[in-house]
């Protein structure tokens, strides 16, 4: 008997595994039918999960930890049995700010996080940076990367990604950190220049997770297992370069992620157009959806998230880290996916962090 599970998502590039699991039959093979519900904001998705209107949802990797620490308006505890994507963020600058960096000789190599931080520190102005959500990997990556700036220089503004180009063009923000396709879109329509991919700061930053209310997987192990396997297999398929074009076409059909397929394909293949003149700067491992073993939500990753959140919002670190660790359930991932020893040894661990000392 096929069972149904309701699943919330926000239409972005990294919603691809959810759409593909449904359309390409990975869910069907696992004997589960996905009832996909599109949401317009992370707050809305969080409410849908809180209220049990969806069983699970694609969610920002930082939200379960933030919620466990009592940050934000959500109420219930969340946990993640699967990482849906790693990386995929870009940091971009407004045209006037980019021009100032160019004047002082910045190379715009799209990889050296430390030299980019140094040149921003030299400019000596306030830096208003747009991020999609207060509790997002985008905010934490920037906060870590520019921690060496004098206090008060850096301020964050929450800007829904589709409004990022407009906010930049109208001078409400000087820079942004956002997931694709919205960074490329800001290059196209607002003359933005991309400075760094998120992976230049942390090589494997968890970006989206599958989130449920705490205890849901244990209460519904059969259904949860089918769901996790279907999504993990879709992610694995998506992670193979030869599937990028097909994936981009499928994901951009009406009612799904409504942007031009080439924008999605560039994100999937790491061919990022970084300036309005069309310069392409390839990034290896720009955004990862697989292999399956790499998508285990490890408590060590959540601990980093909890620690950075605690520092940013002035909370005690030890309890924050403890609360955050509980939200990334590598144990459920291992149980549902039955990984071999060889697969587990291939897990990259935390990955590398850039040296960002100024």
């Amino acid at each position, binding site marked *: 008997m096929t069972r149904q599970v309701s699943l919330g998502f926000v239409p972005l590039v990294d919603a691809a595994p959810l759409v593909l699991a449904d359309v390409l039959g990975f869910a069907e093979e696992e004997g589960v039918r996905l009832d996909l519900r599109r949401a317009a904001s992370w707050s809305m998705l969080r*409410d849908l999960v809180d209220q049990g209107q969806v069983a699970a949802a694609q969610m920002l990797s930082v939200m379960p930890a933030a919620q466990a620490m009592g940050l934000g308006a959500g109420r219930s505890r969340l946990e993640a049995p699967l990482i849906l994507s790693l990386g995929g963020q870009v940091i971009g600058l407004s045209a006037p700010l980019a021009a100032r960096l160019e004047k002082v000789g910045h190379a715009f190599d799209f990889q050296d996080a430390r030299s980019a931080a140094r040149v921003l520190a030299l400019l000596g102005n306030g830096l208003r940076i747009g991020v999609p959500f207060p509790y997002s990997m985008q905010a934490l990556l920037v906060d870590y990367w520019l921690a060496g700036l004098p206090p008060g220089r850096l301020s964050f503004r929450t800007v*829904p990604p589709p409004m990022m180009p407009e906010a930049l063009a109208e001078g409400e923000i000087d820079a942004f950190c956002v997931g694709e396709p919205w960074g490329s879109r800001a290059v196209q329509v607002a003359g933005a220049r991309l400075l760094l991919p998120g992976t230049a700061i942390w090589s494997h930053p968890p970006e989206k997770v599958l989130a449920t209310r705490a205890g849901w997987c244990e209460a519904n192990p059969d259904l949860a297992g089918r769901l996790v396997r279907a999504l993990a297999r879709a992610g694995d398929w998506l992670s193979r370069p030869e599937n990028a074009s097909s994936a981009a076409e499928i994901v951009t059909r009406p009612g799904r992620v409504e942007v031009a397929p080439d924008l999605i394909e560039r994100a999937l293949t790491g061919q990022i157009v970084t300036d309005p003149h069309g310069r392409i700067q390839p990034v290896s491992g720009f955004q990862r959806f697989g292999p399956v073993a790499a998508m285990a939500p490890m408590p060590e990753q959540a601990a980093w998230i909890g620690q950075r959140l605690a520092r940013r919002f002035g909370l005690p670190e030890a309890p924050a880290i403890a609360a955050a660790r509980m939200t990334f359930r590598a144990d459920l991932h291992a149980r549902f996916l039955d990984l071999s020893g060889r697969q587990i040894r291939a897990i990259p661990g935390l990955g590398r962090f850039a040296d960002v000392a100024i």
Partner: protein
Amino acid sequence: MPATLRILLIEQEAERAARIVEALAEAGETDVTVLSAARVLARHVAQARPDLVLIDMAHPSRDILEELTLASGPLERPVAMFVDRSDAALTRVAIEAGVSAYIVDGLRADRIRPILDAAIARFHLFQRMRTELAATKAALEERKVIDRAKGLVMKARGATEDQAYALMRKAAMDQGKRLADVAQALVTAADLLG
């Protein structure tokens, strides 16, 4: 007598906004500011200092409000999403109606209740209308595609309208697909082949 309740309503459609304001006025002493632009939201909430913020749950700017749950300055009052802990049913009803309410800390729940009830009723009506409109629009789109596909089959096979329709329906049943999907495939193929 309680002071007037300051409400900030975020709503893009002027007509909808007017009707919500009307409903709120009937429910109690309110002073409603309507805001349609989304990006200036945070600044406006800080300036207008409302007691209650009402926003369509599906409004793409909702995440901006999340920022306000962190009061960063001494003059700022933290805003909390309205989740009356004693009344989970009300929260559920609000979410089903598609309205999100954010209240300023310290406001008594019984002052909010009649206002929120009125807002929920109004939003619920809009939600139903929106669902029906979307369904109607989708059905119309599908009918257009089916008509085009029927025309293509009639031309290619010299069939009558009824025969073309029957052929398409059979193809759909044989393949376990929806008629509209088979029609869409035909139309796409015809467009590609010129």
